[in-house]
């Protein structure tokens, strides 16, 4: 049967309608870019609570101004920004009443003065901070946290996200359930790392007055120290293995009487004059000690 003219007209109207609907849906779902500028003085504080998913990237510059660029679906995410003095509060929340609010995404790019204190929280998506020297508290559930050339009192907390810190200094606290931690070329004076099932890698020097604690329940803890280092080492494990591949660079520890007991295997050693204090422990994971070439 041949379609009549009336049928053709009807089909055209429906097609046009469908196209319009698809176009409008695409426009509504397309992410909206937003940029705000905040003038600050002294030591600014940025608090970002990303209740939805998304990436947060922070870089520094010399200007006394904070620039917040965000990208999010306009009809699904509400982004609120507020400045009180030198404090900037940013919150991204889902406006989706039902369904899957946690699939909603908001990405942020912040440019801040070097001495900015950061408090960033997200669900998934990378937190990346580069060349910021203020204290920071970074929290993520499933997202990774990467820091590069940052310093200050740094607190990182993840549930499953991993943590990589390159050329960082100051004091560090890291806790995670299953996330890994990698400290590459660090200059920290105080380090406290704890993960239940993740791995820990410390590849770098120990500050002479530093205190370093690294614990993993079931993961591998690997320490690669340099020939110039000077520290007292205590490595202890319940059922794991202490694999000391740098025994020839160590002496029995001389400074304190930290010992194990019948439940724990303990290795006490001194490198150099034993200035820093390095404590490594696992429950069932392996502890590996190496000297870098």
């Amino acid at each position, binding site marked *: 049967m041949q379609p009549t003219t009336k049928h053709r007209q009807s089909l055209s109207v429906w097609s046009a309608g469908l196209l319009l609907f698809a176009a409008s849906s695409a426009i509504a779902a397309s992410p909206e870019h937003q940029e705000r500028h905040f003038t600050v003085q002294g030591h600014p504080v940025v608090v970002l609570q990303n*209740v939805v*998913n998304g990436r947060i990237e922070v870089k520094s510059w010399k200007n006394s101004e904070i620039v917040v660029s965000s990208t999010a679906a306009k009809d699904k995410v509400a982004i609120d920004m507020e400045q009180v003095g030198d404090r900037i509060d940013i919150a991204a929340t889902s406006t989706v009443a039902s369904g*899957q*609010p*946690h*699939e909603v995404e908001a990405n942020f790019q912040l440019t801040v003065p070097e001495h900015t204190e950061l408090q960033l929280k997200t*669900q*998934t998506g990378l937190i990346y901070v580069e060349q910021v020297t203020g204290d920071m508290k970074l929290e993520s*559930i*499933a997202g990774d946290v990467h820091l590069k050339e940052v310093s200050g009192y740094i*607190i990182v*907390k993840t*549930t*499953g*996200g991993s943590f990589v810190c390159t050329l960082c200094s100051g004091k560090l*606290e890291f*806790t995670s*359930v*299953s996330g890994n931690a990698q400290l590459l070329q660090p200059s920290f004076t105080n380090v406290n790392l*704890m993960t*239940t*099932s993740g791995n820990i890698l410390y590849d770098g020097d120990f500050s002479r*007055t530093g205190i370093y604690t690294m*614990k993993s*329940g*079931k993961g591998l803890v690997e320490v690669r120290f340099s020939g110039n280092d000077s520290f007292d080492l205590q*490595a*202890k*494990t*319940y*059922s*794991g*293995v*202490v*694999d*000391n*591949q740098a*025994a*020839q660079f*160590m002496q*029995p520890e001389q400074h304190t*009487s930290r*010992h*194990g*007991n*019948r*439940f*724990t*295997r*303990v*290795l*006490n050693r001194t490198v150099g004059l034993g200035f820093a204090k390095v404590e490594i*422990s696992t*429950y*069932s994971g392996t502890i590996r000690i190496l000297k870098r070439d």
Partner: protein
Amino acid sequence: MHCKELESVLEAEGLGQLPKDARLHLATCGACQGLLADLNAIASAAKTIPAEMNPPERIWISLRAQLEAEGVIKEPVEAAEHSSWWQSFTALLRRRAFATASAGVVVVVLAVAVFVARIPHTPQAGAANNQPVTESPRAVPTQVVASVPSPTAPVVSLPSKGSAPSKVKELAPSPSESASFTLNQAELDVPNMQLAGNSQVDLALRQNLRTLNAFIAECELRLKENPQDELAREYLYTAYQQKADLLAAMMESGRGDN
């Protein structure tokens, strides 16, 4: 010059060369001579103390407890700084109306602290366990350092408001069992939470909860066999803390609002 003025001079000038007036007064005043002798003794003693000396943790705990008991500080200092597991835990309890369990939780907190403090350090019993500490590549003799019995940790007394510090009761309840029970009660709500199901976050939360539960079970079993294993206890309490944080995070993120 009078005694009060001499004190002011000492306060301002220190113990170095004193002005003539002060010296004249000092020559005739026995009380001020005694004061100066005391100050010199303190200064000498201070010089013998190492520059870096950290007091034991128990000092801070006792000090904090005392200050809290006297109302000088309203909340634990540590809790203000970091979100401790009890902070998360109490938030969790608030949200989930575990009001009846709250009192029990407080008891558990104290019991944990007390229990840890009163664990006698076990005398060493030779080399440890089944797996060796391996050192390579040189022939430095493998050595598991013999442990030495350390002095029993002093009992930390946590004075309550308006009461004199008292000694800890010998028969404290098992803190790990109580904490485990309370956390498991909180976890009972998790299956009923409205989870997205396919999201990366929910998957991560659930997987990590399973990881923690498995690890907690392992540590609890270990402690049941060897109640004096401090390393297992340390890891167990850290796992409890992480589980409390995790449950609080799950509820905070709106999953518990069903």
